[in-house]
């Protein structure tokens, strides 16, 4: 999703003179944080994949690449899904595999058209489980109005996988006059979010082994292309769209601030955090602004269009809870600052890796 997203810059530390006991992030092996959507993920891309693949298309580092092909502007994206458990309140691996890729395409303003699916199955997984995932993929594709045009299946030995992994890729067409990418954020832009945040991440945690807690919170997984189309019907001049998945709103906004060299200022009280999400984060010690969403988007819109775009979002089922949460500013470039409910401020930094329950 937001994988190829962060413009990672060199560190100010002189490695030769470092006396630090903890070269924490120069890990010689892959750690879980490399998949967390935060700074470690960004470093992996910057240090391993970008140098190996290096080309101008990849360098744009958006949710999906926008390519000129045969006279058309094509959005193209791929993503792998490794969620555990496979079925969770509000959705399943199959829903995520479709909606995640559809949403990455939609964040370029594209209307998604075709998907591929690649299943990696672990020996011994009940066929019934595979069938349930496949059915979920089919149903989600129908809802998102995309066609699963091609696919692949591989089996790995027992113990070499985690049940079912799915990779999807997708293509869609970007309408004429639409140019949506993180570099286009401008001071003055209104920052809009399409609905309540933190639902997906909390729903997954509530059923994760060792952490289980009771709640009615369900994942928000949903396709967002329809909502984006409704927004583009108001104006084609939407500057940035992003679906704040892993790393949550905080990671997405930091990525946008860094890519565009602007600052972002949020009003804490305007950010829609459902009470039960806030309470779950409270007892686990997590910040809802870093918790994953799978059916939300954040938009940077020129101020003159903000009101109309917000109204269009609220009129759409996927944007009913949309809110204006802040603005893009020229100050503190590359940083996100939150005005707290009490009237102070705090810096919302890019998270390092995945969030963990804390005691302190």
């Amino acid at each position, binding site marked *: 999703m937001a994988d190829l997203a962060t413009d990672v810059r060199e560190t100010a530390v002189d490695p030769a003179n470092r006396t630090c006991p903890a070269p924490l992030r120069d890990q010689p092996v892959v750690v879980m944080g490399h998949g967390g959507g935060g700074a470690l993920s960004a470093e992996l891309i910057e240090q391993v994949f970008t140098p190996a693949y290096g080309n101008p298309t990849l360098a744009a580092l958006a949710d999906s690449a926008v390519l000129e092909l045969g006279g058309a502007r094509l959005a193209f994206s791929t993503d792998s899904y490794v969620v555990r458990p496979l079925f969770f309140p509000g959705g399943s691996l199959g829903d995520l595999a479709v909606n995640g890729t559809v949403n990455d395409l939609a964040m370029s303003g594209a209307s998604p058209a075709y998907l591929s699916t690649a299943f990696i199955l672990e020996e011994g997984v009940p066929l019934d489980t595979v069938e349930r995932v496949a059915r979920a993929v089919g149903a989600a594709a129908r809802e998102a109005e995309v066609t699963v045009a091609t696919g692949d299946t591989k089996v790995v030995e027992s113990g070499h996988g985690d049940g079912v992994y799915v990779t999807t890729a997708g293509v869609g067409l970007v309408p004429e006059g639409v140019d949506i990418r993180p570099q286009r954020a401008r001071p003055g832009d209104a920052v809009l979010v399409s609905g309540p945040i933190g639902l997906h991440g909390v729903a997954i945690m509530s059923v994760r082994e060792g952490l289980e807690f009771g*709640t009615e919170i369900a994942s928000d997984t949903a396709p967002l292309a329809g909502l984006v189309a409704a927004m583009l019907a108001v104006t084609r001049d939407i500057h940035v769209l992003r679906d704040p998945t892993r790393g949550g709103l905080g990671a997405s906004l930091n990525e946008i601030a860094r890519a565009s060299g602007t600052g972002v200022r949020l009003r804490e009280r305007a950010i829609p955090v459902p009470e039960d999400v806030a309470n*779950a984060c409270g007892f686990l010690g997590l910040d809802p602004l870093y918790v994953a969403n799978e059916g939300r988007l954040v938009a940077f819109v020129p101020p003159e269009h903000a009101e109309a775009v917000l109204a269009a979002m609220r009129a759409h089922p996927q944007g009913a809870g949309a809110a204006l949460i802040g603005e893009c500013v020229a100050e503190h470039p590359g940083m996100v600052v939150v005005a707290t409910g009490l009237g102070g*401020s705090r810096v919302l930094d890019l998270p390092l890796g995945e969030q963990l329950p804390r005691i302190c």
Partner: protein
Amino acid sequence: MCLAVPGKVVSIDHSADPLTGLIDFGGVSKQACLEYLPDVKVGEYVIVHVGFALQRLDEESARASLELFEQLGLLEEEFGDAWQQAARQESGSEAP
């Protein structure tokens, strides 16, 4: 240190060893050890840290604190120096 949050005791499993109960944290619930508050009752609020209820929350004290905060400044507003008060309001409204 010590992330501890208030929750309401929803049910108590008296057969559990150690004593355990279900705590509601406002739309989110989790089991907690009640062994350190053996006479806690359903409906009472407790403060929970790493799965242990550590102390009862005293409603009377909470109310007294909030009432005190409500009263702050009121005495001076009634009887205090008007100029000083105006200056204070000014500086208050300038606060971010």
